Structure formats: structure tokens, C-alpha cells
């Protein structure tokens, strides 16, 4: 009896589904694939990322969709790992109806999936900031955050031209992020005629920074440029600088103003500057995004959500402009996007697929992050 009842429910459901399917066929949604972490150590950032994308999809759909069709996100969990992202991408890429994809914010994951992106040959919109990602001959990668070569240029430009400091100490982690950042920063400083008085690396998860602090002190530097990967390292360093009475101006990489960094270092980071790609006070578009995000999800947005929001909007714009879902046409249409006001800044795509070419400078004003200025580059 029970089995019969169950069978009936299943067949009814099947009929209902077929009916819905038939009705929807007239205007099938345009599918966008997305790989983001919903499990693993960085699952929290994945939540911001999917919420940012969903917010944009909802807005576009409410406004009538694209080419008269609704947008639909197909999300797969990348498990916060490189093998996970390859698996997740192969799953979504198996759906032939998908037009384009939102990829990871972590450069290492983008590197891992890049060969598969070439094979699939459809646009993948990414947030990873390793400069090489858009410079390795992969025509399908489009970046929605400014790459790290710009962060170094902005740090150097702000420190030298705005703060007027010439005696630089550069402190960096010796991992890929820290070393790449240091190299770019030293190059940018040299191009402005400034030779750093100290370039000091350290290995991540150091328990003590006394030797580094003393080296900064002895160098006589009046400004500090940093690329520190882990927030606890930065917290220990900041506190020991303060304890040993070393007080240079400080312009740091985006790690310097994350919520965790502010909480760990506390007063030791007051008065420091940092470059960030998303700041709610940087433009009216950023402010509007932040307000919408808070209304929808009841939390403060951050860099993990803003680029995904922009990516969906730019993709929708490109599809509408190109009036086609064909990968090559979408690709050309994204490259043609100029002057689009997004939450992260103004998108002017270059031939490499980089949309943004500058960073915001913010100041840690006794624990509150205050927008200072936006520096953009033409090249």
C-alpha cells in the first residue's frame, strides 16, 4: 500500500516536472557555472563569493534577465583545494548549456585548472591576483580584481609621492605571495629612483620577529612596505615594532586590513596604511553594492563577494552587448567592456583580460578603516 502511494507520488512529480520543463523550454535560463569552496579551510570565503554572485543574478533577473532569458547559477564545491577545483570544474564543464564560469579567488587554484579551461574554451572569470595568470597565453581567463603588480606600484606611489618618504624597508614572507610582492615593490621603487635601505624576508609562522624589528631599526628606514601572508605573523611583528619603539610609516598589502589582522594586532596597527581592492567608500558603485549586500545577507561584504558580483554583471553586459552566447563572441564582448563602474572600481579590460588597473589606499584610523584615495594606472 505504502509502496503504491510512494509510486504515485513519484509519477505525479515526474509529470509535474515534465510539464514545468515543457513550459520553461520557450525561455530556458542562461546557465553560468561556478566553482567555490563550501567545505574545507576557506569555506567561509566561498560563502561570500556565492552570495556576491547570487545577488547580481537576482538583480539581473528582476530587471528582465539577459536577451529576454533569466540567468541561473550552477555551483560546485571546490573543497578549498587544487584537486577539488579541477574536479568541480570538470563537473560543471560537463554541462554543455553553460555559457561561462566563475572561477576561484586563489591564484594557485586558477593555475591548477588553467589547462582544463583551455580545453573547455569558454570564458572563466577569476579573482586570483598572481599577475602571470592573464599573461600565460590562456585567452579564456578574465580577471575581476587588480593583479599584484598594481598593488606594489600603488604602495610605492603612495609612499613616495603622497607621504614623501624615501628610506624604505621592505619586509616580506618568503612564500610565493610575499616574494612576488617584494620583487614588484622593489622594482616599482627603483623605477621611481628609490633604492630600499633594507629588504628583509622571513619564513611564515615565525614565533618571534625581534631580529627583523632590530634590522628595521638599524636601517634607519622611515617607511615600511610589507607583503606578509599570515595575519598572526603580522600581528606579532606589529606588536614587537611598537614594543621596541620602532615607528616608521607603514603601507602594507591587503592582509594588513583584514578583519582578522585588525583583531589580532589591535592598537599596534593604528595609523598604518594598506592597499585593498574593495572598499565601500571608494565609489558610489561600491557603496551601493555594500548596501544591497547588507540588506540581502545581513553581514558586511568584503573582497570575496564584490568581485563575484561585478563578474556576473560584466558577463551579463557582455552577453547583451554581443547578442550571442557563443564563447568566442562572449570573449570579444568582455574584452570590449570599457568604463564599467563596478563595486571594485572602473573596469577597462585590456588585451590580457585584466579588468582593473589600480588599488584603493585605506588608513587604519584607530581601528576603523578609512578610505584615503584610489590610484589607477593607464598601463
Amino acid at each position, binding site marked *: 500500500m505504502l509502496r503504491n502511494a510512494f509510486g504515485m507520488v513519484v509519477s505525479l512529480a515526474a509529470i509535474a516536472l515534465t510539464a514545468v520543463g515543457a513550459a520553461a523550454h520557450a525561455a530556458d535560463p542562461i546557465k553560468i557555472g561556478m566553482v567555490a569552496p563550501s567545505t574545507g579551510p576557506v569555506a567561509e570565503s566561498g560563502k561570500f563569493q556565492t552570495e556576491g554572485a547570487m545577488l547580481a543574478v537576482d538583480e539581473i533577473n528582476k530587471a528582465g534577465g539577459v536577451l529576454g532569458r533569466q540567468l541561473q547559477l550552477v555551483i560546485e564545491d571546490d573543497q578549498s583545494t587544487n584537486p577539488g577545483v579541477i574536479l568541480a570544474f570538470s563537473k560543471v564543464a560537463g554541462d554543455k548549456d553553460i555559457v561561462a564560469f566563475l572561477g576561484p579567488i586563489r591564484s594557485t587554484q586558477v593555475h591548477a585548472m588553467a589547462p582544463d579551461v583551455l580545453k573547455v574554451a569558454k570564458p572563466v572569470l577569476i579573482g586570483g591576483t598572481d599577475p602571470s595568470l592573464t599573461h600565460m597565453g590562456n585567452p579564456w581567463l578574465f580577471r575581476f580584481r587588480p593583479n599584484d603588480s598594481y598593488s606594489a606600484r600603488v604602495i610605492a606611489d603612495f609612499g613616495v609621492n603622497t607621504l614623501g618618504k624615501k628610506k624604505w624597508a621592505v619586509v616580506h614572507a618568503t612564500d610565493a605571495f610575499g616574494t612576488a610582492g617584494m620583487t614588484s615593490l622593489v622594482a616599482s621603487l627603483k623605477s621611481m629612483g628609490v633604492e630600499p635601505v633594507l629588504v628583509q624576508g622571513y619564513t611564515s*609562522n615565525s*614565533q618571534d620577529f625581534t*631580529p627583523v624589528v632590530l634590522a628595521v631599526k638599524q636601517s634607519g628606514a622611515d617607511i615600511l612596505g610589507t607583503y606578509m601572508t599570515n*595575519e598572526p605573523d603580522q600581528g606579532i611583528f606589529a606588536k614587537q615594532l611598537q614594543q621596541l619603539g620602532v615607528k616608521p610609516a607603514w603601507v602594507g598589502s591587503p592582509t594588513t586590513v583584514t578583519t582578522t589582522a585588525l*583583531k*589580532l594586532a589591535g592598537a599596534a596597527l593604528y595609523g598604518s596604511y594598506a592597499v585593498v581592492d574593495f572598499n565601500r567608500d571608494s565609489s558610489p558603485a561600491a557603496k551601493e553594492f555594500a548596501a544591497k549586500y547588507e540588506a540581502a545577507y545581513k553581514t558586511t561584504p568584503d573582497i570575496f563577494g564584490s568581485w563575484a558580483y561585478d563578474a556576473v554583471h560584466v558577463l551579463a553586459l557582455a552577453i547583451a552587448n554581443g547578442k550571442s552566447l557563443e564563447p568566442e563572441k562572449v570573449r570579444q564582448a568582455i574584452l570590449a567592456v570599457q568604463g564599467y563602474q563596478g563595486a571594485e572600481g572602473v573596469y577597462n579590460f585590456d588585451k590580457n583580460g585584466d579588468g582593473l588597473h589600480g588599488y584603493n589606499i585605506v588608513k587604519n584610523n584607530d581601528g576603523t578603516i578609512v578610505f584615503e584615495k584610489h590610484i589607477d594606472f593607464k598601463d
Partner: protein
Amino acid sequence: MGFNLQLLFTGIGVGSIYALVALGFVLIYRATNVVNFAQGDFAMLGAFSMVVLAIDFGLPYWLSIILTLAALAAFGAIFNLAVYYPLRNRSFLPVIISTIGASILLENGVLAAYGPRPQSLPTVFSGQGITIGSVFLDSQYLLIIGVAAAMVAFQFLLFERTFIGKKLQAVSQDKEMASLLGISVGTMIMVTFIYSATLGGLAGVLVAPILFVSVGMGSSIALKAFAASIIGGFGEVTGAIIGGLILGVIETFGAAYISVPYKDAFAFLGLFIVLLFRPQGLLGERVAEKA
């Protein structure tokens, strides 16, 4: 001069952290002849317990410390029953693997429960420290150095001057003989685990304001502490302290005078040299194979 004194103070402070964790290694090794690879995670649990009690629940700092140490004592008993006791009659290898497994479980358990974001904990004293001449003495490091010294004295008295200490020593030297003499081996090992876990928790409470509280904090200290106890002579209480201090001073001076990125390498180079020329450790007794 001030430069070197500052480095020396930091080296001794960092070395005392290694020494505190190394003490826990040594105790369990003496009682059970196995290395407990979850020793660093005891410190991590102690630190997280402080965050939960003192910050999340807002309890007074002193009360949080007492409750944390009590919780770690209870945890030591559970750890003994779950990780060591079922394998007590096997060789040392399965027990070591079991402690590695426990370490992975603990770190991921805390990760799942508390998330990946590192937490901060205020220091015990409100003042940051004192400056003498050009040398800054961090109050938390002064406290750690003091506690490490006190624990060494306490442990020396415990092992050499008390009856329970003698019984613990007897168990570590020869379990069968000890049990023939009427010593309850199981109870002594239980006492050791409870004490080591409490000691590890105390180390965590003390270092949390300096190193912050994160899931991986214990294992990174434990690696150095392990090296420290080998340098000192594995199984030697005084050796663990001396090894810890030597390690802390070597890596701080090496970093300042030679290279910061190779800081960890100096510590392990020290270990390597000791193993090469004095494999039993600085204070260890020479163990000759009996014919």
C-alpha cells in the same frame, strides 16, 4: 650591547616556551617510552579553552586559567584511556601512530568547531613590559621565563623528593618490576598523562597572548620542543629546559646575525650537530647495548 641583550632576552623567552612544551614530552616519554606527538595540541587546546572562557563567556582571567587547567587535566585522563591505554601492551610504534592520529583529530575537531580564523587573547598583565636601558622586557615573556623556572623546580622536587615521584620513576624504568613491588602501573601512567596535559595547557595559556590562538599553533611549537628535548638528552627534565633555551638563543642570534629566513634551519642545525657528536644529548646518559 643593547642590541645583543635584546636578542638574548628574546632568545631566552622563546626558549622557555620550547622548554615548557618539551617538559611534557619528557614526562610522557619517561612513563611510557613513547613520544606523544599530540603534546603541542594540548597547548593549542589550552589556548582555545582560554578564548572560549575568558572572551566568549566573559569569565574573569584567573578563573578561566583554573577552569582551563582543570579541563586539560580531565582531557589528559581521557587521552590516556582513548589513545594510550588500548595499545599499552603493544610496541612503541602503534602508540606513536595513535598519538599522531589524535593530533590530527584534535586539530581538525577544533577547526570544525571554531573555524580557521586565528583569535587573540589579552596578556595576564595590563602593562606591556619594562624598558631597562635600551632593552625592552616583555611582561608576558618574563612571566613565561618565571613559570618555566618554577616548573623545573617543581618537577625536580616531584621526581627526586616525593614518594609518588619515586613510583613514577620506577614505572618508567621497569614496569614489570614496579608492578611486582606493588606499584599500580596503570595509575602512575594515568597521573603522568593528567600532569602532562595540564602542563601543555599551561604552556598554551601562557603563549596565547604572544603567538595568538590558531589551530596549528601547537604543532609548530612542538616541533622545536621535540628538537629541544633531543638536544638536552631525551628523558631528562633539566636537559629539556637547557635544550629549549639553547635552541631559542641559537635561532634568535642566527636570525639577527646571519639570515632571518634560515632561522628554523639554525635550530635544526644545532640539533644535527648535537646528534652527530653527542647522540645521547647534552645531559643524557650513554646507553650501551648489553652483550
